[in-house]
């Protein structure tokens, strides 16, 4: 029996509604809860030592906890949202099927056997410089993930495809990638983009149309300047 869910208010302010029956459960990123019916019990846990450590290190002070919502009644509603404005998508994986997500895109998952592997080392070294690391999700189950801005699917073929690392949300297991500085040294300094990932293989890459670091660099000049006298 598959749990009922709907993604509402897509694409600009996507909002996830799940309906949980007796004994069903959903795991969500801490902070994702918007509303819930009263017969849902919340258990807070620190999931995965490495996830905790990596998050603490990379996201600076972000909560190390995830919440498990367990239903003790029929038709219990659970509403979840991500922090940034944008879209959301569900990816349903068969047993053993893999999907890759940037850590900040993860919202929630259902399916007790779904594995979220943060030990996926292939990428961490590359991405750590920009504060992003990848999650390897292994089915069976459904993972819900969100974008800042629209969620734009690109189908990668034999010729390959290049994406600014700040715009990567996730990708299917059929593609692999290599990270490089964009347009060499000069590009890194002057072109405005830092790193890009060259994808190859066959599968879909999900791109977000906005990027948090662009917003930060827009806002930076508006910050007050610290006085030298104080």
């Amino acid at each position: 029996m598959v749990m009922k869910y709907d993604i509402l208010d897509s694409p600009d302010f996507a909002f996830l509604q799940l309906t949980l029956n007796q004994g069903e459960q959903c795991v969500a990123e801490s902070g994702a809860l918007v509303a819930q019916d009263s017969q849902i019990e919340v258990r807070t846990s620190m999931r995965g030592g490495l996830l905790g450590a990596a998050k603490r290190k990379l996201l600076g002070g972000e909560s190390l906890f995830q919440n498990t919502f367990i239903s003790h009644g029929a038709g219990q509603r659970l509403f979840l949202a991500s922090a940034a404005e944008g879209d959301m998508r569900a990816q349903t994986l068969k047993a053993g099927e893999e999907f890759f997500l940037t850590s900040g895109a993860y919202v929630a998952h259902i399916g007790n056997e779904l594995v979220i592997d943060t030990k996926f080392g292939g990428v961490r070294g590359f991405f750590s410089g920009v504060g992003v690391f990848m999650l390897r999700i292994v089915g069976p189950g459904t993972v819900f993930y969100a974008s800042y801005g629209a969620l734009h699917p690109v189908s990668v073929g034999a010729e390959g495809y290049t994406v600014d690392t700040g715009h990567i949300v996730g990708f299917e297991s059929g593609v692999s990638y290599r990270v490089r500085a964009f347009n060499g040294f000069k590009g890194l300094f002057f072109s405005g983009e830092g790193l890009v990932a060259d994808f190859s293989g066959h599968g879909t890459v999900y791109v977000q149309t906005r990027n948090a670091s662009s917003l930060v660099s827009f806002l930076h000049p508006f910050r007050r300047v610290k006085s030298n006298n104080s």
Partner: protein
Amino acid sequence: MHFEIQYNPAHSLATAHLNVGESVRAEASAMVSLSSQVDVATNTGPAGRGGFFQKARRGFLGGESFFQNTYRARGPGATVSLAPQLCGSMVVHELGTGPSLLIQASSYVAAPDSVDVDTQFQGFRGFLSGESLFFLRASGYGPVLLNAFGAIETIDLDGELIVDTGHVVAFTEGIEYSIDKAGGGWIQSFLSGEGFVLRLRGRGKLYIQTRNPTEFGHTVGVMLPARSS
């Protein structure tokens, strides 16, 4: 080449579709993704434009860089995807037999080689160095990609209209313009929070944005911890 715009109004993405040998120049930080048949070169536009870029580097454009990358298609099916820094729409203005377009610098995203983007445009220079009011002049033929903070409204001007400088995206040349203060006097103008306005007169096309980036920057920026420099 042509631009395809998706996800308007809030989270627009523009994809430039290039035929073999065609190229598009785009504001450097706008690049989201590109197909493999595209060659990239970073440049600062044609020679003699250094002065402008140095100004741009000093934050003249409110944090926006004005380095342009040139993307050239070396094979068929080449695409480059571009997005603005903030939430909002994009629009394409076609240049052809009609007048040139004056563009608020941070509203410009991209154009093909057939469009000349003049960064030396003197119209507003030295007028209000405190305001990030800097215009580019686009002439030639072909599509010019513009972005907005918020939605874009297109106004067919026939007569006079007063627009807050922070809401101007672009307007066609031939429209007369002057910078004015919003209130009765300079102090009143400052206190009213409306700052400066453009008084536009004549016939032509005008694009305005429904949010003001400078207002947003000030509103949110002061809530952030102070920076050291």
